[in-house]
């Protein structure tokens, strides 16, 4: 409840924040505070200096340039969920954002803070990995772009340097397909969430079914911890569908190994296949091929269980993507 003492600086610009990072040992950036403050209150983290970047308005923008969406690092999950631009260009992002934590977490927590924390099961980590996003990082010597595949370097470890700041995340748009209202289609689903509350998943693709799907569809399904609501295991899929056949697929899973990972074997197994329930069920079983032996486990969900649930989540995401109920 009571954090240790620290020095506090409010940064007026990204450059000032970087300068403050350089001039203070053991300083941490404070954005929404939803990853850092809980640790500090339990006295599990005790930085000597906090640099508050919450006031940096230029890190709070959402813009669409051609086939990419650029989301400022300080944009909250709630802002992403509510953004018409995001929903139009890549509704998977909006759906995922709307399913993170609870309403208050979404009001404060930021996409930059979330990926900087680098929880191995983070919703953003898994989804951005599947989407092949890139992260803009700024330091004293200017900006650089890090591909998401290089960004996560271990549990709670990233490619961001000691004196660097994440400034934005750039995500490709999903290509249009004809059966939605002219935009890429994405959803988030939580096995412990309200989507499941008593009714199973309701899914409606306008009655057109799989045969009517064209273009990229993105979906995310997860199992959340019933206490913390942190994701335990999540699976994100983006499938490019033509005439009910999978032209290409990108699949990522989180909560299994120290970082979110692409499920290349599942992608390969899906590619070229008719997206039937049986083919999907067979393809997700290849997930094990992409995972080493060292699966994460805890009191709530052991390694063995995660290994079993991960393909189920990927399967659910795929079923949702093509409009099949999984129950």
């Amino acid at each position, binding site marked *: 409840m*009571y954090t240790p003492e620290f020095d*506090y600086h409010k940064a007026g610009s990204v450059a000032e924040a970087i300068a403050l990072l350089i001039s203070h040992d053991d300083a941490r950036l404070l954005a929404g*505070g*939803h990853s850092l403050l*809980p640790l500090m209150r339990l006295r599990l983290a005790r930085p000597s200096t906090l640099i508050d970047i919450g006031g940096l308005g230029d890190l709070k923008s959402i813009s669409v340039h051609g086939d990419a969406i650029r989301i400022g690092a300080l944009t909250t999950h709630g802002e992403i969920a509510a953004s018409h631009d995001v929903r139009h260009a890549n509704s998977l992002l909006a759906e995922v954002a709307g399913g993170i*934590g609870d309403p208050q977490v979404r009001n*404060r927590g930021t996409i930059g803070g979330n990926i900087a924390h680098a929880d191995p099961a983070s919703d953003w980590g898994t989804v951005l990995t599947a989407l092949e996003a890139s992260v803009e990082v700024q330091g004293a010597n200017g900006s650089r772009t890090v591909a998401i595949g290089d960004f996560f370097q271990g549990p709670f470890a990233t490619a961001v340097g000691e004196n660097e700041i994440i400034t934005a995340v750039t995500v490709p748009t999903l290509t249009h397909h004809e059966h939605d209202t002219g935009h890429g289609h994405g959803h988030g689903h939580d096995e412990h969430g*309200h989507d499941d509350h008593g009714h199973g998943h309701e899914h409606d693709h306008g009655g057109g079914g799989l045969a009517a799907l064209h273009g990229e569809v993105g979906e995310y399904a997860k199992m959340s911890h019933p206490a913390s609501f942190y994701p335990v295991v999540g699976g994100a899929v983006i499938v490019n569908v033509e005439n009910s056949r999978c032209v290409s697929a990108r699949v990522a899973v989180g909560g299994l190994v120290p970082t979110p990972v692409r499920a290349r074997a599942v992608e390969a197994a899906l590619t070229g296949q008719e997206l039937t329930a049986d083919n999907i069920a067979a393809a997700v079983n290849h997930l094990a091929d992409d995972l080493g032996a060292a699966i994460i486990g805890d009191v709530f969900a052991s390694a063995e269980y995660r290994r079993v649930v991960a393909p189920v989540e990927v399967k659910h995401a795929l079923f949702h993507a093509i409009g099949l109920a999984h129950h």
Partner: protein
Amino acid sequence: MKVPIKVTVNGKVCESEVEPRTLLVHFLREELGLTGTKIGCDTSQCGACVVRLDGATVKSCTCLAVQADGMAVTTIEGLAQNGNLHPVQEAFWDNHGLQCGYCTAGMIMTVTELLQRNPHPSADEVRAGLEGNICRCTGYHNIVKATLAAAETMAAAPASTTATTEATEATGG
């Protein structure tokens, strides 16, 4: 080293100097004496401390007072206008949406934002919107009922909610 802050709380400008580590909830309770906002946990789960910060509900135990500098805070004490209960308060009363009352301030603050964003929620949407608030007494049944009732009153008589809407807008909501 104390830091000066200026926060508008329930419409009143409050200037103070705080230790950087002071949590917003402690600032409200200890400095300003606004004890209606409760502390129920230390890990941002329970929602007893929910207030509106520039209109958005936040857990005031997961926000430093310095982070609220220059912003507007509405607490449970600021909901009733001119002695008239907010329709959400009224609905909690009418529908037995509380028992021990400890989670109530946070619940009510969450529901005011929920109904502002979604004036006609389904029961499932209400339940989803309450994910960040724990109640140990009611089993949530009557909180959901109260929220749906408040939605109806607010839709039926928008005039009666004008005062509060303005208040929320004043705080950036």
